[in-house]
């Protein structure tokens, strides 16, 4: 028989039985070997491995895409804010609110205060704003709840609003309380469509105004949608549109005064001057002035805080999806341990210790989440870029988000791989070998 010949041709050394086994030589098997075993485990069942990774792929992809979206939004907002016009100081009545109402005992910000602010050294321009909400009609269309902004002629230059058609009103028209209106891009579209709005007549509340200009498209900056406003001389707004019961005080109350500063370095100094003057005229201590005085940078910081909150929220959502992915890994690993009971028994029978088995399954779980993590990074980066290109939203891939996502994928693997790995390690070899 051939078998016999082959056997006799191989030198099988007679085993040496005089040395008992050193049963205390615990050690672990080489990491390279563990990696190889784990890799074989992953590669042996590709479909199952892919399904296991799916949760992590989605989780990691979501983290990167969501952070890219919030970073994109953030970038857009700060660019817009920076585009407000440089070196601007915002003086607001109350603490951010202002306008008619509020506590009547508090000093209020009034139209005459503009003169005071304009008189401060270093201030090169001022604008003022008071708002009411009105119903506006053209011949064909009626719009309700439109913000009517009463302001002064310098508004377009101070707030960087371009006039795309016609013009803004001037000092004379302001003094005369001329019945003029400048429409923002969006309002002009809604009221007149493709028609030329210049020279047209609109009814604001009960007053007829003539449209003399249209502001260029601007978008949303901070909380203001610059494309849904109507501008008019503030004197006219005081006269016609503010509720009668406030005539005595509110008639010349203003919501906000803008001051444009010549040199950015002067900013702090100018603000102090403004505060001192206002405190003087209101007859209160500087610390008690109920006005919010903010610079560009203050506003950027506030916006930054809100987008950071938004980003945190998205990170949470993504974190939850990673968690779900991790639980997915754990589920499939648990099923896999059961399915592979026989394999575990075989390994145990040839001398795998509980630690060897634990390490094998733990390494498999980590391997799955890392490979899933890598695929997730590809999905996230490509998805983020595609999303930015195909939707209105801008996306910015944040490098840190890639590390964050990859790190969490690894953590998920270790954390959720541990339980199934432990279960595998604790199997009894005899029962495992008998498992059908």
């Amino acid at each position, binding site marked *: 028989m051939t*078998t016999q010949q082959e*056997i006799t041709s191989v030198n099988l050394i007679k085993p040496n039985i005089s040395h008992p086994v050193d049963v205390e030589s615990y050690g672990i098997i080489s990491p390279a070997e563990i990696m190889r075993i784990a890799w074989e485990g992953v590669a042996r069942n590709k479909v199952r491995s892919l399904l296991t990774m799916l949760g992590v792929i989605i989780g990691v992809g979501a983290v990167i895409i969501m952070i890219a979206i919030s970073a994109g939004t953030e970038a857009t907002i700060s660019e817009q804010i920076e585009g407000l016009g440089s070196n601007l100081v915002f003086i607001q009545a109350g603490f951010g609110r202002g306008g008619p109402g509020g506590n009547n005992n508090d000093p209020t910000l009034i139209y005459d205060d503009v003169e005071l602010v304009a008189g401060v050294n270093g201030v090169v321009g001022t604008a003022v704003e008071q708002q009411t909400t009105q119903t506006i009609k053209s011949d064909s269309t009626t719009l309700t709840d439109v913000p009517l902004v009463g302001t002064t002629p310098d508004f377009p230059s101070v707030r960087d609003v371009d006039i795309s058609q016609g013009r803004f009103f001037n000092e004379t028209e302001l003094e005369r309380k001329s019945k003029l209106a400048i429409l923002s891009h969006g309002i002009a579209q809604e009221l007149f469509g493709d028609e030329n709005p210049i020279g047209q007549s609109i009814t604001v509340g009960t007053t007829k105004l003539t449209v003399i200009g249209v502001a260029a498209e601007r978008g949303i900056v901070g909380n203001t949608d610059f494309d849904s406003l109507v501008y008019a001389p503030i004197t006219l707004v005081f006269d016609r549109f503010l509720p009668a019961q406030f005539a005595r005080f509110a008639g010349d109350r203003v919501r906000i005064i803008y001051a444009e500063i010549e040199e950015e370095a002067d900013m702090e100094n100018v603000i102090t001057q403004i505060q001192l003057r206002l405190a003087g005229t209101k007859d209160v201590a500087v610390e008690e002035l109920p006005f919010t005085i903010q610079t560009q940078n203050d506003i950027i910081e506030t916006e930054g805080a809100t987008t950071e909150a938004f980003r945190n929220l998205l990170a949470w959502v993504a974190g939850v999806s990673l968690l779900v992915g991790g639980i997915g890994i754990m589920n499939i690993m648990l099923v896999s341990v059961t399915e592979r009971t026989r394999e575990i028994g075989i390994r145990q029978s*040839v001398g795998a*210790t509980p630690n060897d088995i634990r390490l094998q399954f733990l390494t498999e779980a980590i391997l799955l989440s890392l490979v899933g993590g890598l695929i997730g990074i590809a999905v996230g980066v490509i998805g983020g870029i595609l999303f930015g290109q195909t939707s209105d939203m801008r996306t910015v891939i944040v490098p840190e988000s890639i590390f964050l996502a990859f790190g969490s994928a690894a953590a998920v693997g270790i954390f959720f791989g541990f339980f199934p790995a432990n279960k595998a390690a604790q199997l009894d070899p005899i029962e495992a070998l008998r498992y059908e």
Partner: protein
Amino acid sequence: MKAIIRTENLRKTYGMGEIQVHALDGVNIEIQQGEFVAVMGPSGSGKSTLMNIIGCLDRPTAGKYFLAGQDVSDLDKVQLARIRNQQIGFIFQSFNLLSRTSALRNVMLPLIYQRPGSLSIEEREAKALAALEAVGLGDRADHDPNELSGGQRQRVAIARALVNDPILIMADEPTGNLDTRTGQEIMTVLQNLHGRGRTIVMVTHEPNIAEITERTITLVDGKVHQERILSALEAV
């Protein structure tokens, strides 16, 4: 001759509650180095239980078991794994090969679980290949188990049992899943190993298979019932 296996009043009791099964009920056996022993007995007589304990897969409830003079009755899981890895080779009825894993990788398995500092990957592969060649499957090293016949699979399993140079080979019904002719082939392989000095303990249900060995231990109800010792007969 040195005793590879010596048991003293070996007991294995299953079930902690009211109903207790005495799978092994005081077994005293001694098997010398180089012996080829068959274990027979009716179903449920404790053959597999005895094999599991002798093979260091399980521990006795009471009694002592000395493997090559070393008392292994009270070793823990990890220590038993070390013993299995270095001193014992298993051959199962259902082959128990890893699926979708080449014959060579299957045979290498015991070497993988040796602790570091033992063999390089190349040495392991060479050793596994030598073991495959020893069972006549040198040309099938790259084949997966599902590409091999039952007899070939069992020969891969035998190669795996050999690769660590074990002092003891345990075979629980190695021909149970094979037809008569293939069974004979496997027995020839085992006989050859025996001829080269291996100690083999084999469970079987088939008397004609048992006859090939030099000694048969028959278990009934967890006790040694009778022994047939060929060498003693031959000596007459």
